[in-house]
């Protein structure tokens, strides 16, 4: 059987044409408005309370819509945006170092290896400056200079200092800003908050997204919830790899269920492997911890020149070390983009020059920076990260170089959306990491926070109004056949999982799935490996549905049951990721196919054949998906071989 079939091309019909600087302004002007009195009659469901979802729910509440917000954590403040460390980009040009909206746009399109939409990225760069203003007004305590003005620093893939930060906890501070704005709306009665609730199905009525099925994770109660529009802000799917820097609860269920109901899934194979994470220490490992990319501003990455050099790193003399990023990429050095730094680390480890007990690690060394700036300065910049490293590894990075290795961190793929951030299901909007929109095949550092907040504060609240202007839509309740069916599907799936009563735990399956994905759909992919992975995933999925064991019932808090539902969806996604990776016969950004590389081992794009977004349509379980191509055209940033040398 073929792995997929090809359908009609797809296009974004929402972005205006004309000069790129004027497109967002024109779209906002052309979009329909909803008068304030009518907003109260309209309900919007927002799933997820991270930067995108929290900002959107707060803003829609401020505008006067009735908002119902859902998150699986015990509080909206805990969404995984909170863990973002390094910073947020904005084209403020406070440094007078040549930055501009156009340069941020250019860097992001190039950084994404020419696989993103120019219109979307330009809008992101435009809006970036408003985000900083908004967050400062909310009381986000960004780092400041002695004169009282905001400080910025450099991040990978850029030669200007445009990254605003709050020590190593930028995501936390931005999220708490959005969370506080959200809590204000909750207090005012404009937003109804439902924490410890998980979305398990989308309800589509007459072709429009009209509601969701949720499970109250405390009581086990399953309910149907309705609205005039549904916004998914449920994050990425990095946990398909089991080990990733995502929080344990991060999952694909909300977007995958929407995909099964008709929303196309775009570029699922684009995953970001972050170069600076703490290496795996053993089989018990349950997650991986990131060490912020900002560390590469002052840390130098190296391995011994000779294979199998087991000496203490401090005893290895300068001329026997290979500072390989500085050697291969002299102009960007240790600040090359993430995909490039990760692959370089993999290559030196594959050569047998890796360090640490597993030999899957490279050094990130601060000795030079400590000598140059003093320990105090390094402490002020990175103190909390150094402490975290020491707590996890038991080693003091002021004395011994850190050991780092790449780990799954972010997913550029996600549900396909148009310029309005609307999916292929009318009324279903997708924002933040959950959509595919702005990062192409590789995301630059400090751009995830920018995109999440851009979508949530500034883009969605404008574009959703254009859709709601045709509402309120005909009232739907739980007795509607579509709602009855969606609810029954959820209940059946739960009963089916509980009834298996097999002999393996959910985690054991998840771990095994993750190993298949890391091995064959991770930093380097090949046709043979991907075909093997597809067979293995299918076999393991069959085993899962025969052998998984869940203790307890569905009538209350049951964490194994929650995990089982998520892993079941990861199995289906994993297969699509491999098919997407297999069909994309080129290397670009985070997608590196062993068959497609330049003579010096860099990613070899094929713009003639693959300058498109791959949007996948679900057909039926076990049936091939349909590929719809959206052609990408580049009027402003001309595709070149991406070089950081």
């Amino acid at each position, binding site marked *: 059987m073929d792995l997929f079939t090809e359908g009609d091309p797809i296009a974004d019909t929402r972005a205006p044409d004309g000069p790129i600087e004027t497109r967002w302004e024109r779209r906002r002007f052309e979009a329909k408005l909803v008068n304030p009195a009518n907003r109260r009659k309209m309900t919007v469901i927002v799933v997820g309370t991270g930067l995108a979802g929290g*900002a959107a729910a707060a803003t829609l509440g*401020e505008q006067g819509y009735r908002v119902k917000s859902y998150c699986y954590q*015990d*509080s*909206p403040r*805990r969404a*995984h945006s*909170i*863990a973002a460390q390094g910073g947020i980009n904005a084209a*403020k040009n406070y440094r007078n170092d040549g930055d501009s909206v156009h340069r941020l746009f250019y860097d992001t399109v190039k950084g994404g290896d020419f696989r993103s939409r120019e219109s979307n990225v330009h809008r992101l760069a435009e809006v970036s400056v*408003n985000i900083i*203003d*908004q967050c*400062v*007004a*909310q*009381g986000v*305590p960004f*780092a*400041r200079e002695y*004169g*009282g*003005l905001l400080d910025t620093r450099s991040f990978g893939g850029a030669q200007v200092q445009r990254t605003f930060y*709050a020590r190593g*906890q930028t995501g*936390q*501070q931005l999220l*708490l800003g959005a969370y*506080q*704005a959200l*809590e*204000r709306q909750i*207090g005012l009665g404009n937003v109804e*908050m439902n924490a410890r609730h998980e979305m398990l199905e989308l309800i589509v009525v007459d072709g429009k997204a009209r509601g969701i099925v949720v499970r109250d994770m405390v009581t086990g109660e399953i309910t149907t919830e309705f609205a005039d529009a549904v916004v998914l802000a449920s994050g990425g799917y990095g946990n398909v790899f089991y080990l990733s820097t995502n929080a*344990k*609860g991060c999952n694909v269920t909300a977007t995958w269920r929407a995909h099964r109901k008709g929303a196309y899934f775009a570029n699922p194979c684009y995953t970001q492997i972050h170069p600076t994470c703490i290496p795996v*220490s*053993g089989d*018990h*490992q*349950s*997650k991986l911890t990131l060490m912020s990319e900002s560390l590469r501003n002052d840390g130098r990455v190296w391995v011994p020149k000779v294979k199998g050099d087991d000496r203490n790193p401090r005893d290895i003399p300068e001329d026997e070390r290979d500072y390989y990023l500085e050697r291969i990429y002299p102009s960007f050095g240790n600040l090359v983009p993430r995909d490039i730094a990760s692959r370089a680390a993999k290559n030196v480890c594959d050569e047998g020059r890796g360090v640490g007990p597993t030999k899957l690690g490279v050094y990130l060394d601060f000795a030079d920076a400590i000598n140059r700036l003093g320990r105090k300065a390094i402490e002020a910049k990175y103190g909390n990260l150094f*402490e*975290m490293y020491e*707590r*996890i590894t*038991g080693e003091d990075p002021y004395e011994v170089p850190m050991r780092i290795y790449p780990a799954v961190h972010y997913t550029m793929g996600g549900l396909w959306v148009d310029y309005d951030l609307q999916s292929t299901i009318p009324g279903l909007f997708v924002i933040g990491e959950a959509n595919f929109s702005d990062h192409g095949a590789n995301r630059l550092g400090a751009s995830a926070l920018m995109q999440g907040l851009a979508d949530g*504060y*500034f883009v969605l609240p404008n574009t959703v109004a254009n859709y709601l202007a045709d509402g309120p839509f005909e009232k739907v309740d739980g007795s509607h056949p579509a709602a009855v069916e969606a609810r029954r599907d959820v209940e059946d799936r739960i009963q089916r999982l509980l009834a298996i009563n097999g*002999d393996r*735990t959910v*985690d*054991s399956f998840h771990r095994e799935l993750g190993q298949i994905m890391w091995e064959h759909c991770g930093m380097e992919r090949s046709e043979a490996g991907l075909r093997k992975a597809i067979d293995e995933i299918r076999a393991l999925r069959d085993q899962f549905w025969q052998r998984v*064991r*869940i*203790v307890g019932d569905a009538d*209350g*808090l049951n*964490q*194994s049951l929650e995990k089982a539902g998520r892993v079941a969806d990861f199995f289906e996604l994993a297969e699509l990721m491999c098919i997407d990776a297999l069909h994309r016969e080129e290397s670009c950004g985070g997608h590196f196919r062993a068959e497609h590389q330049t003579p010096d081992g860099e990613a070899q794009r094929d713009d003639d054949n693959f300058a498109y977004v791959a949007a996948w349509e679900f057909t039926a379980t076990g049936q091939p998906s349909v590929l719809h191509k959206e052609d990408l055209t580049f009027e402003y940033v001309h595709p070149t071989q991406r070089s950081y040398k």
Partner: protein
Amino acid sequence: MNLTLRIWRQSGPEDKGRMVTYQVDDVSPDMSFLEMLDVLNERLILAGEEPVAFDHDCREGICGMCGLMINGDAHGPQRGTTACQLHMRQFSDGDTIDIEPWRARAFPVIKDLVVNRNAFDKIIAAGGYITAPTGSAPEAHSVPVAKANADAAFESAACIGCGACVAACPNGSGMLFTAAKVTQLGLLPQGQPERHTRVIGMVDAHDEAGFGGCTNAGECTVVCPKGIPLTTIGRLNRDYLAATAKRGDTPGT
């Protein structure tokens, strides 16, 4: 190493609950405390027993979801460390470890080690913000903030809302949590217009949620994984006094 765990098991809010003893062998010192619980849970599931329910998410000390009383200490023996960042090298072979949920009137137990901390959200909703609707913000550099104030605001803003302060407090008070937010926003020029309404709203919500009063025992700051200082409570008290005086109230009535 081999450990004996005594874990609080409670099937639901109505159940009385009890300590149950488990033996966990072959624990690696490189495991995190929660990974050690994962190992126990895997074994319980295969034996057909219900795994121990506990809250956790990011497992890197920032989301604030995990919270365990470990041998009577909120988040365990290592200072400045959440339970998820605690590693087993802090323990020794043969140790017996007691693991209990946060215990406070305002944090009722849901199941086993999982408690309901919604009361914290209610405190924030009652004033823990700066009113700045999206789109209304002035240019970021129009209001400089002295670095010392920005740094001190950050220090308070680092609170992760885990509730260790409440669990450690002999009165079950949430004053350190409340004071951290009052301090952060009160130190910034943007936070001045709502400074007085904020502190009154938040303290009222705190009291209504069933938290106890603060008697400056200081246990909260000892267990706080983010090192929020006790001086924040002093600042809250000063703001509260000023706010109530301005309102014409007599403090304490």
